[in-house]
């Protein structure tokens, strides 16, 4: 059983000055799952992803990935281990072409460097670049963005930028991919495309997915399991249908009075 766990988060607490963004949050994600994190605005969802990807370091608790302690590891070292992510606020390299953005994702897989790269034709760099270009083109085809591959990333529409960001994260060849609101700001059609991509990613590319999303329809439709955060605390975890039936969750979302939440608020 334990060998099936890809990501294990245990008792993570994160504070900003006086604000407790996360309190004692524990959960684990199995290989091959689509695991969603939901919760109201400011619940600590992005903070959770940041602790996993290394942007923030928790005050206490631990994060283990592939049976390896990564709590204090630098973000760039984590991507080498097989961790990729997208951001809630668009984070593309705005002045680069779409193609180059995605090629940056291959960074840790490429071997050419500042000394061999300039000797392009004589150091094998050309062949290496072409080989990885082919892999990148596969991702471009998969996400249906071949028509914009030469465009400057900063000039694209919101929906396309989200898609390019996903492409860039896939290019890392991660075993675990973290998606922070991949469908925010999209219309229904774009959302459906994105949901399909995430499912394909999971089923055909074999990536485990941890996703934050506000659209309940999508979350319930494609997740294997769901975790709910509110005020930095985990208030529920389970199968989508269990979560839908959960009183606390409904109240947290509908803003109804809820004793447990009130207690939580008071204690913070």
């Amino acid at each position, binding site marked *: 059983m334990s060998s099936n766990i890809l990501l294990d988060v245990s008792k993570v607490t994160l504070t900003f000055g006086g604000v407790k963004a996360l309190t004692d949050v524990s959960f684990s994600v199995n290989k091959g799952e689509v695991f969603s994190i939901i919760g109201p605005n400011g619940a600590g969802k992005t903070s959770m992803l940041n602790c996993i990807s290394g942007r923030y370091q928790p005050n206490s608790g631990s994060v283990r990935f592939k049976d390896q302690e990564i709590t204090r590891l630098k973000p760039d070292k984590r991507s080498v281990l097989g961790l990729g992510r997208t951001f809630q606020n668009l984070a593309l390299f705005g002045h680069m072409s779409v193609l180059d953005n995605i090629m940056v994702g291959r960074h840790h897989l490429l071997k050419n460097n500042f000394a061999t*790269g300039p000797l392009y034709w004589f150091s094998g760099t050309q062949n290496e670049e072409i080989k990885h270009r082919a892999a990148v083109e596969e991702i471009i085809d998969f996400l249906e963005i071949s028509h914009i591959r030469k465009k400057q990333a900063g000039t694209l529409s919101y929906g396309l930028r989200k898609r390019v960001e996903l492409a860039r994260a896939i290019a890392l060849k991660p075993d675990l991919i973290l998606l922070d609101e991949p469908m925010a700001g999209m219309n229904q059609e774009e959302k459906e495309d994105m949901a399909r991509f995430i499912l394909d990613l999971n089923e055909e590319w074999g990536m485990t997915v941890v996703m934050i999303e506000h659209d309940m329809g999508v979350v319930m439709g494609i997740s294997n399991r769901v975790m709910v955060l509110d005020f930095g605390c985990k208030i529920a975890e389970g199968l989508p249908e269990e979560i839908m039936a959960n009183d606390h969750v409904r109240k947290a979302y509908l803003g109804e009075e809820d004793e447990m939440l009130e207690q939580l608020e008071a204690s913070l």
Partner: protein
Amino acid sequence: MITLSMRPCGDFRTSYKADNQIFETKTIRWLTMASIGLLCFAPMVLDAYFLTLFIQISYLGIAALGLNILVGFTGQISLGHGAFFGFGAFASAWLNNSFGIPVWLAIPLAGWLTMVVGMLFGSPAARIKGLYLAIATLAAQFIIEDFFARAEWFSGGAYGAAAEPFTLFGFAFDSDESFFYVALFALVFMTLWATNLMRSRDGRAFVAVRDHYLSAEIMGISLNWYRLLSFGVSSFFAGIGGALYGHYLGFVSAEGFTLMMSVQFLAMIIIGGLGSVKGAILGTIFIVLLPEVLESTVALMAETGLVSHGSLTEGMAYLKEMAIGLVIILFLIFEPQGLAHRWKQIKAYWKFYPFAY
């Protein structure tokens, strides 16, 4: 319209290799090769004055290329580039004089040595940014200048150092006509070096660090290393440029490598276009030719009696410096993307003139 590809209609790419070419079209490639070929005949037709200008453009342009990698592509700042240029000049002369390393080998070695020194002085870049980094590199400028004055074993101190001419198979490139070829080769070689760097892994990493350092880090790019490496690469170019300068003049003395020179390098890349290989060269051409054009204009005006001879020629030195300052300000206001951008627009205009088909 300007963001469109510059390829003519019907020129479709069939392989990734073809798509990764340095030159956008066969015509541009052919034209570039032809101009380099034509330049090879320059020493036979042009007089020494123009050859000197070209040689200047070459060694300064190589250094400006390096600074553009640091400032334009990686988004950092340096006020010490002139000192690194000087370090390359002294280092190459020193390697040749003290260890008998032939000049053709001493030049690249001086480049690598300057790279190490650049990374040493660039190490604050891993921690600080912007104005603070500017001040730290300013300190580097003064420390290195002071080192030139004191380290007699290295630089000859107040006397300066002699630099042997560039020699290959017993032939000494010691005249303007012959050194022209060394300069031309070096400029083409280093331009290719920079272009290839920018289309391979570490070049992309530099731009990624500039555009969005947080996601660069998530992509597996070590911020500390690339901020440092960028200083190294930029100093490498400065060192090569400086070494060429030394062996061209035959003598290196510490006075020239001042803060003013560092600022001039910055002016070149701002005017030429930040983050453009072509821009660094265009900017260098501009800054080298500007005072020459000014001077000949003033001379012409004096001859025709438009202005009195004495006053203007005496003020020439001030006029030059003021002109550079004025041009930088004008460029910042009216052409913030530099000459490279203007060039692109002119190209776009011709592409569609009169019809692309």
